[in-house]
């Protein structure tokens, strides 16, 4: 008993010490508030450049709640530590960044500290944005300052003690934040450097595509080795990429700007917003990003190339294919295993009419031997796709797939996923499929609710 009390006392003293130390470390001066800027004082060319940078950085993706006003915040970001709500970055004085000067904005981007001097959580990827140049910060600032001001306060973060205590982030920064600016590599081409600047900085690709440590920081030694994003797996995009057909600069370029590629599949989950945004930015920037990512992946081995070529050979490349869909359901013979394997029967009866239709993507479903979802460590993305499908992306061209969640039982989804893994990949059997099915069901229910508009306090400018 006494020993326990002593231990508790020591822990308390230690905790107090850590909090005290971080409080000192974390002290940042408040930056003087400025009067709301007149939007007309910003150079339209600068604002336009800021809009493109905002698209490259997917700012609106996190800073806009489902059904909410653009950039007004309130979007819940699930993290392993709790839920963090994105803030309002419209120029509203009370709830947004109306009183922020460029210096305050630049400090937030580079050090993760808000105008008042509070630490920001690294869910806001300032560990990447620290590389953004002065000029680009000025353009982004001009763009955000010229958005309509919306009065909307993000809900309080849902984080346990001591993570709800912001000063501890000073310790996190000390350990994990390496400040910019971006250092170009003179040994590489200008295009490679432009791509590196965009991918590592404003694009913050590693925020999803790199694994994170127990404290939520990206593991530098395993950069781009695959990570997590909002319940989806972000694929490996370094030399260990599991794509059945090796990526090239051209295929990456096409995929990033269109959101799909005939030999690789469709960008869905959180990647959909990224490709939607990249469809709006200058083609040269997307190409530069493709050059850099292709370099991260490196030259494929002769074995990978041969395997990829074999998969591509015989694929239809143009036209809508030879068979009309109405004939599709009867054109695929049941596999011999169908009688004993329910997953095989499900594939033959429900999936093959599109996925083996002889129609190229996007007119038919992708040959599943090309799909990275089936090669991944976790069945997560595949199960999301089976349950929710690939809804049409309004206003954009691309493949779509109906979801089968309403007609497949949890057990059938698991049987199908197991069969597809065994048939279309040479990777080990998946475990934990059941819990992934439950998570995908929950996500699809939430997506149904996402149409509901969020509560807006008032709009000060319309």
């Amino acid at each position, binding site marked *: 008993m006494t020993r326990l009390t002593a231990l508790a006392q020591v822990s308390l003293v230690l905790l107090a010490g850590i909090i005290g130390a971080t409080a000192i470390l974390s002290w940042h001066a408040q930056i003087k508030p400025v009067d709301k800027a007149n939007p007309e004082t910003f150079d339209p060319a600068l604002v336009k450049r800021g809009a493109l940078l905002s698209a490259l950085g997917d700012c609106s993706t996190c800073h806009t709640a489902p059904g909410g006003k653009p950039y007004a915040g309130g979007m819940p970001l699930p993290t392993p530590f709790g839920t963090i709500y994105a803030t309002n970055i419209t120029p509203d004085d009370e709830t947004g960044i109306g009183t922020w000067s460029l210096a305050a904005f630049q400090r937030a981007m580079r050090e993760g500290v808000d105008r008042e001097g509070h630490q920001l959580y690294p869910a806001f990827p300032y560990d990447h944005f620290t590389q953004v140049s002065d000029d680009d910060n000025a353009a982004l600032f001009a763009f955000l300052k010229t958005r309509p001001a919306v009065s909307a306060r993000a809900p309080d973060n849902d984080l346990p003690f001591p993570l709800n205590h912001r000063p501890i982030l000073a310790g996190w920064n000390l350990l994990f934040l390496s400040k910019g600016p971006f250092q170009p590599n003179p040994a590489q081409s200008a295009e490679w450097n432009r791509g590196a600047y965009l991918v590592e900085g404003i694009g913050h690709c590693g925020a999803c595509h790199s694994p994170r440590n127990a404290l939520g920081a990206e593991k530098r030694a395993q950069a781009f080795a695959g990570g997590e994003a909002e319940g989806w797996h972000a694929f490996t995009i370094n030399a260990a990429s599991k794509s059945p057909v090796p990526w090239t600069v051209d295929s990456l370029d096409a995929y990033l700007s269109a959101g799909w590629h005939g030999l690789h599949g469709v960008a869905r989950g959180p990647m959909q917003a990224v490709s939607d945004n990249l469809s709006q930015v200058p083609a040269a920037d997307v190409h530069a990003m493709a050059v850099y990512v292709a370099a991260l992946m490196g030259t494929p081995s002769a074995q990978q190339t041969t395997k990829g070529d074999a998969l591509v050979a015989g694929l239809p490349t143009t036209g809508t294919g030879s068979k009309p*869909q109405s004939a599709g*359901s009867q054109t695929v013979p049941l596999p011999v295993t169908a009688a004993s394997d329910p997953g095989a029967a499900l594939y033959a009866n429900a999936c093959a009419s599109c996925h083996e239709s002889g129609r190229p993507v996007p007119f038919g479903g992708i040959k599943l031997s090309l799909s990275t979802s089936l090669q991944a460590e976790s069945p997560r993305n595949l199960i999301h796709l089976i349950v929710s499908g690939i809804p049409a992306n309004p206003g954009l061209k691309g493949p779509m*797939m109906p979801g089968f969640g309403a007609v497949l039982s949890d057990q059938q989804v698991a049987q199908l996923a197991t069969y597809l893994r065994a048939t279309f990949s040479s990777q080990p059997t998946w475990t934990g499929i059941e819990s992934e099915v439950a998570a995908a069901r929950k996500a699809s229910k939430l997506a149904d609710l996402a149409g509901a*508009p969020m509560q807006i306090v008032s709009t000060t400018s319309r």
Partner: protein
Amino acid sequence: MMKLNVNGADHSIEADPDTPLLYVLRDDLQMNAAKYGCGLGQCGACTVIVDGEAIFSCITPLMLLEGRKVTTLEGLGTIAKPSPIQQAFMEEQAAQCGYCIAGMMMRAQALLDRNPKPTDDDIRQTLQPHLCRCGTHMRILKAVHRAAELMQSAGKAAPKGAI
């Protein structure tokens, strides 16, 4: 031979397990409300309800429907006694050519069953998978709101437990 429950009645169906539900409804059961549009699950004209959820019948193979309850537009009401959703679509004149409307009504019904007072946004979001080339979208929106009102007043008028 498979047993298929449609609109509360069991039917014995002689068809391959990969036969799309739509073909069985139209060809074997002569229920022609669900329409063949694209056959790809992309237009929504074939939509029916299975266990409370709207699904595309053109891409749903028979094998998945063992022990499930299928509801088609024929199961909601008749010409003499239309259901609230049918009544509302007639009152708002929400159909022009009408090819997409049966599917629209089925998904709207599934929405109203789980959300009796949907907002404009709810309806737009829910009916997203449906294509209408005539352009009666605004009338369809009105009709779904009217159906919600009709269902509510019917619920109030009827004694508890009657529905």
